[in-house]
């Protein structure tokens, strides 16, 4: 047979060359036919194709020794395999040749070693090869080699359904002591819920009692446990948690080399998709309530067995990517312990769209329990409170909340209790961030739950706590306003009570809460500034807050305008640093824009909201004070907010006291005035600020200030 093939190949090429010659002599439709012939000739002459043909046609029992043709063809295949890899068809042919042992065991091993796929491995070929395993002629070492090969290329097999169909057949090899470790690994990769059966569990347990605690059995059994915890249970000791050993180094490197050369990105990951909790904390904690539970599947499914069998559910443990999550969205089984979700962003993504009341409640029970035990009940005198674990736990909670953009009700409930016992310094950044995440609190409760404890903390703590709390309350307000703008925009603003749900919050209820919060911060800020001597850092955090407040109408669509109290306005106006004055000007400008637009809307639509006269009066008064004081040099004019007796002012011996807070004499801007004066009149020895007052230099001076970045002032008084 071999000789015949050997002969036929050259004769083929002879024939075609002959035909070629005749065709060229005729020279009809030359180019077309030449191309066709050329192709056919190349194909026929391609020694690799011939080699494959040899291996597919070679007859059983062909002698191996002294068979040069076999040697030549195999070398050809090997060379191609190691350089470019083998095509799916080539893999099929070579695998079939090897496993059928047509020329004995020796070539089989050689062929297996060079089976490096270019792209994919056809599933059919693997299934056929597995069937050859059952014939029982293949030496054990070769069988092992074959399974190692399957494990290596497992991710490159184009489909797995037929392989899964012969799961039982593959399982039967598990009783072979030599094959067992490798078969277990292969089964691990193939196992689905429906493949876990009582008799298979029993078989594996029987093996376990014979072979002892072997890692490969344990890993397969632990996967069985994931799918059917009602059949088998086990606990894996930490020293055994390494997964299956890597069996595939000879091919692995060749495969990587071939893939690199081809630039293909078929990633082969034979690593275990095993989520084993890594024990990172070296010292054992007395209390472990801050440890996240391990993601594991439900055991007691009896109640819904019918349900789960009718629609196949996928345990969340089995999902490792967002794509998988999306594919299985409709049939995901929640884990046994909901607390385990907190550790995985994938699970949080699922949680965000699942609307399962019980699931959320379970998570909240666990979370609330952990927070209470750690921070409120702490039996051991609170020694562990500042621990690293607590910090990490809260950070994890915070990142989950940021991810979901919502807080958990149990952390909210915890905070209300915790605030009354908090010293204001323990884990301050974390607690304040948690606090800034809480949803809108009804105005009837906000005082008792939030303001009372916060007020105590605020007045008894350091400047930095005051600043931190201001920042937290600003964030809280921003979140509430954002929440409002998202939900209110979906709806028309006229919120009639929706009768079918009790969860609604009316617009007026929401407005009351926001107003309470703004007034509360106003009170804190007024007193805080006095206590801290109008510290500019604190003032800056306070102005942050009012930057949100002044824009509630235009930016967040909330029909509410609340002016800052005098205790905030005047310290900002008379502040020693120009940035604060500028920011105040900007805030006043935004108030103006908001109020004007509210006014026009009030005129257009009849039933628009009503802003009280008091608010306009307050605004106008502030406006007059600011303009008179900074621009018009008319400080202490009668009718302004700040009034002092004439006699008292004269007694103070301040010359031209009415100018002392204009943009030239204001302590925050004095240095700019000096600078401007020097640039304007470089020769002058004595400063005369009044010369800036003349109309020309005054407008230059304003330009000069604006050029220094004081945009707030510029927007506040637009240049005519």
């Amino acid at each position, binding site marked *: 047979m071999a000789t015949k093939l050997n002969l036929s190949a050259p004769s083929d090429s002879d024939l075609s060359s002959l035909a070629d010659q005749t065709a060229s002599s005729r020279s009809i439709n030359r180019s077309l036919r030449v191309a066709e012939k050329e192709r056919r000739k190349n194909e026929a002459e391609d020694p690799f194709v011939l080699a494959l043909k040899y291996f597919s046609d070679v007859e059983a029992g062909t002698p191996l020794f002294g068979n040069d043709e076999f040697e030549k063809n195999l070398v050809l295949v090997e060379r191609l395999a190691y350089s470019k890899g083998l095509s799916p068809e080539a893999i099929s042919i070579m695998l079939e040749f090897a496993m059928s042992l047509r020329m004995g065991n020796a070539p089989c091993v050689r062929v297996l070693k060079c089976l490096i796929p270019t792209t994919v491995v056809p599933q059919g070929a693997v299934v056929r090869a597995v069937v050859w395993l059952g014939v029982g002629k293949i030496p054990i070492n070769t069988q092992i080699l074959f399974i190692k090969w399957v494990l290596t290329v497992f991710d490159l097999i184009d489909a797995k359904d037929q392989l899964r169909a012969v799961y039982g057949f593959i399982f039967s090899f598990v009783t072979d002591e030599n094959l067992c470790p490798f078969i277990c690994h292969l089964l691990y990769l193939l196992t689905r819920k429906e493949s876990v059966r009582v008799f298979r569990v029993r078989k594996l347990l029987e093996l376990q009692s014979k072979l002892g605690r072997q890692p490969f059995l344990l890993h397969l059994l632990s996967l069985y446990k994931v799918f059917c915890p009602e059949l088998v249970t086990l606990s894996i000791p930490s020293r055994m948690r390494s997964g299956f050993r890597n069996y595939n180094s000879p091919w692995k490197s060749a495969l990587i080399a071939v893939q690199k050369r081809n630039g293909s990105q078929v990633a082969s990951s034979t690593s275990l998709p095993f989520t084993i909790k890594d024990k990172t904390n070296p010292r054992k904690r007395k209390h472990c309530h801050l440890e996240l539970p391990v993601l594991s599947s439900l055991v007691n499914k009896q109640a819904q067995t019918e349900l789960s069998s009718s629609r196949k559910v996928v345990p969340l443990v089995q999902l490792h990517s967002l794509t998988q999550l999306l594919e299985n969205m409709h049939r995901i089984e929640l884990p046994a312990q909901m607390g385990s979700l907190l550790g995985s962003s994938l699970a949080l993504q699922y949680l965000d769209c699942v609307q399962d009341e019980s699931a959320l409640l379970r998570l909240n029970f666990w979370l609330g329990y952990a927070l*209470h035990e750690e921070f409120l009940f702490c039996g051991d005198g609170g020694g562990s409170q500042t621990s690293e674990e607590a910090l990490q736990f809260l950070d994890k909670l915070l990142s989950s909340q940021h991810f979901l953009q919502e807080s958990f009700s149990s952390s909210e409930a*915890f905070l209300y209790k915790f605030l009354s016992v908090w010293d204001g310094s323990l884990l301050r950044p974390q607690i304040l961030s948690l606090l800034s995440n809480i949803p809108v609190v009804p105005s009837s409760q906000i005082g008792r739950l939030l303001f009372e404890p916060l007020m105590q903390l605020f007045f008894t703590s350091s400047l930095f706590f005051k600043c931190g709390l201001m920042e937290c309350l600003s964030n809280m307000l921003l979140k509430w306003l954002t929440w409002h703008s998202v939900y209110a925009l979906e709806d028309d603003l006229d919120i009639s009570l929706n009768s079918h749900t*009790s969860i609604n*919050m009316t617009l007026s209820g929401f407005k009351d809460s926001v107003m309470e919060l703004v007034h509360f911060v106003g009170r804190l800020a007024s007193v805080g500034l006095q206590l801290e001597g109008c510290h500019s850092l604190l003032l800056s955090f306070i102005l942050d807050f009012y930057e949100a407040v002044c824009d509630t109408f235009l930016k967040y669509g909330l029909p509410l305008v609340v002016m800052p109290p005098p205790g905030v306005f005047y310290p900002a106006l008379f502040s020693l640093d120009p940035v604060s004055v500028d920011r105040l000007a900007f805030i006043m400008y935004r108030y103006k824009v908001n109020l004007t637009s509210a006014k026009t809307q009030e005129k257009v639509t009849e039933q628009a909201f009503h802003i009280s006269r008091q608010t306009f009066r307050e605004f106008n008064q502030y406006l007059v004070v600011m303009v008179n004081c900074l621009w018009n040099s008319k400080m202490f004019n009668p009718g302004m907010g700040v009034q002092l007796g004439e006699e008292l002012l004269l007694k103070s011996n301040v010359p031209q006291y009415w100018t002392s807070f204009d943009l030239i004499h204001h302590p925050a801007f004095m240095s700019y005035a000096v600078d401007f004066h020097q640039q304007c009149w470089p020769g002058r020895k004595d400063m005369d600020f009044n010369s800036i007052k003349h109309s020309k230099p005054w407008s230059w001076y304003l330009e000069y200030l604006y050029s220094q970045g004081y945009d707030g002032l510029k927007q506040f008084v637009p240049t005519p």
Partner: protein
Amino acid sequence: MERPHNSVARTPLNSVIVQRRSKSKNYRQSYRSCLGAASRFSLTPALTARRLNTSRRAPKSHNITEKVNPEHLALLLKMEWKLSYVTPLYQFRHTQLKSYSRQLSAFIAAEKQQGMAVEVEGSHSSFRVSFSVVQGMTETDDDAETVLIQIHSKPLFAGQDEPQRSVWSGWLTCINGNPDYLRSLPKDFICLPLFGSSGPEGLTALVKSWFQQNFDCCFGPLEISHTSLQWLVALWTNCHTESSIQHLKMIWTLPVVPPLQITYTVNPQDAWELWSSVRKDRQEENEGREQVEEGGSIDIEEVMRFMQGLKSHFYRHFRLDLSAGSLKQVSTALGSAKDSGRVKISNSRYMITTLTLLTECALLKMPI
């Protein structure tokens, strides 16, 4: 008969324990909020001001012996129990106890021999677990049935035919649980907030972790507070006429250096007379109602007056004011309780009263 829940006034919040967020077009509170709508809000007084009931029914002797399996009752009375609180159990079914027995024994076997898989359905010679319902141990329809767990094992070097012995026992119960709280839970949850265990710590830990993994619940230690211990002093003393308390023994600690521990034992008759004296005016006052309201109720003021009487008596003799210290332990012939959360109930007739108080303590520990 309904006893007033004066400090913990909660209204049912049936469907709104966790609020749903929906993209539907209405303006609503965030679903993860614990406050929010008016009906939900009733839960929150508990958030900051949850307290023990300030008034409770006087202990009535229960003829519990007629209702409860004597074997179970004997077990409950035999041991001193270490208490824990448990958050509601998710998908716990009283009908599945057989299967739970198998699973727990397989779990214990697997944990005991790390690295060996264990078949759940198989028989395990080392540990045999039995779950059982203690019939009749409920007071209201909202209370879930008490569950008793026993673990039997053969000693390591026991002979072939030596029987397995009980090595650990524990129970989960809910007696007179706050009906509003219980009704607020969705159907999937069973609330058995009080857990008592007796046996090796290792087994307790295994049982707890099995429950955690299977019913997504959490266990925390339940201490018996100073106030609860004072309640027990009064409740037990109140029973003296029906069933002698033999002695009233209290252990106090005073925060001095070195720490001072005081054992204060009172003659039962004296205690009873002191108790009657603080109760007296009330009984006269309630004379008319007495027939209707059998047994009457006890107020926290009476308990405090009683304790004050005991303390001032002690002060007269030893010039030591016990108010500065704290009550650590109480014992009478009816039972004993320690602040660390260990309790022994010796008389079945007053078991329900004691468990009611402890259930209340456990429910106060619930995170939500």
